[in-house]
């Protein structure tokens, strides 16, 4: 058996006294796309944040290609060079133009020259239909446009693993399709992705595997066809039932 790209072993995390992640085990292979679903507050965002060390955890281990993420061999920023993340709230730099938001990390962290970084940025912006906004500031864009810039910013560093936290939550329905295509393209290129989403159609479409989280535990994980048509755990069934009632499946 080959080493998984991301291996999460017995991960446990508290925020103060609150148990947020409870003995989570999850392996994600290279080229695999895993979707995380679950109710609000179930710990999905926290799980992603633990993987690129944005928040510390209390117990367990996370490995990238077999190397623990706190291994000194990653150096100060080595881990972040391997992992890209897109946030629920975009978190674009408001004082920088779109193009500078996208090229900041390639230039300052990866040492790419300005022309090369900008060429790549324009290419990626074009892919997401954002080319014309390159010289605008984030506050001049709609939420959906800002989220697409955030995706481009995460892709610009050519990460090995991409973590996406509800990236379609802010998009207009007619824009979701375009983003979905981008994610599908990335999948076709072999990008390893972990995707938190409330869009079940999106999960069914793009995931190799879907994990259902409740109160910090992975209660069920299986291929999307199985999980959505024949959920095993009563909690999963209840959750999906609510989603169907809300008309989101």
């Amino acid at each position, binding site marked *: 058996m080959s080493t998984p790209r991301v291996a999460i072993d017995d991960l446990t995390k508290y925020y103060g006294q609150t148990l947020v992640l409870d003995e989570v085990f999850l392996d994600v292979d290279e080229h695999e796309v895993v979707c995380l679903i679950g109710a609000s507050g179930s710990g999905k965002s926290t799980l992603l944040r633990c993987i690129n060390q944005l928040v510390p955890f209390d117990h367990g281990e996370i490995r990238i290609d077999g190397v623990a993420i706190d291994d000194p061999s990653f150096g100060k*920023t080595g881990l972040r*060079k391997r992992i890209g993340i897109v946030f629920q709230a975009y*978190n674009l730099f408001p*004082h920088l133009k779109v193009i500078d938001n996208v090229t900041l990390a390639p230039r*300052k962290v990866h040492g790419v020259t300005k022309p090369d970084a900008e060429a790549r940025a324009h290419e990626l912006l074009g892919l997401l239909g954002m080319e014309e906004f390159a010289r605008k500031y984030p506050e001049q864009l709609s939420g959906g446009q800002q989220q697409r810039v955030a995706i481009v*910013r995460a892709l610009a560093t050519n990460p090995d693993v991409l973590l996406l936290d509800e990236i379609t939550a802010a998009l207009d329905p007619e824009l979701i399709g375009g983003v979905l295509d981008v994610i599908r393209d990335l999948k076709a290129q072999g990008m390893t992705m972990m995707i938190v989403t409330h869009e079940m159609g999106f999960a069914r479409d793009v995931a190799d595997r879907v994990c259902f989280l409740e109160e910090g535990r992975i209660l069920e994980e299986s291929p999307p066809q199985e999980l959505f048509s024949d959920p095993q755990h009563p909690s999963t069934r209840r959750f999906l039932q609510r989603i169907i009632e809300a008309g989101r499946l």
Partner: protein
Amino acid sequence: MSSERAASAEPARRAGPRPPVKATLSPRERYAPLAISVVSTALVFGLLWRVITSSENWPLIQRQFFDVDAMRASLPQVFSGFLVNMMVWVIALVVIAVLGIVVAIFRSLTGPWAAPLRVFAVIYIDLLRGTPSILLVLLFGLGVPALQIPGMTTSRLFWGSVALVLGYTAYTSEVYRSGIEAVPDGQRAAAKALGLTQWQTLRFSILPQAVRNVIPALLNLAVALQKDVALLSVIGAREAVREAQIFTARTFNFSSYIVATVLFLLATIPMARFTDWVTKRDQERRLQRTL
């Protein structure tokens, strides 16, 4: 009421060209408010002027404070002193802006190795912010030259200015720090996630936003310093107030103080207006962003 107005404005906008703006205003309706303002203001101030100038002390006041000949005679010295004030002000502004950031960064550093810098910043700010500026000016402006340390200038003007710089650096660093703390956590997370180091995060993400947040507050400090440079007169530095004092001591006439006052006002009023304008623009920008 406002919703009513919004509702009635809506169809008009959709219909294309706006209706002509109340073309039915009569000249009387249009100019009456302006006329009332002008006349009432003139009346009040005219009356005030009457009362003051008709007082029996007025001729004495006029001679002591508003003697045109004395003003003209004192102007050259007071003005050259005022240039010293403004020179100190400009140089101090630049130095304070830089030192303030440095102290603010010290104070907001995290991690055990940064503890000495953090402690230094806290002590520095407490001491310098808590001491009256005039005491700092006296201590440095008179104290340091008295030490006669070889190789160090004994210029009172220089050391007095250093005192102002040190005091204002403490205020300024606190302003910067409030700006740094106002930057949302998501910005640090995003920068960290992109692989930026702690220093790069500060340099490229946090500080530019922090500085932009506090520009109005910084300008307010700049206006305050513009007046506080007059404190240098207490150590005998030959600036505007000191020159005016010298003139008064010689002639027993206070008109030179009025000259100094006018010179300061000519500098501070535009500066304060500029600050108000920047502050207003800044508020509008924030409002737009939250809408």
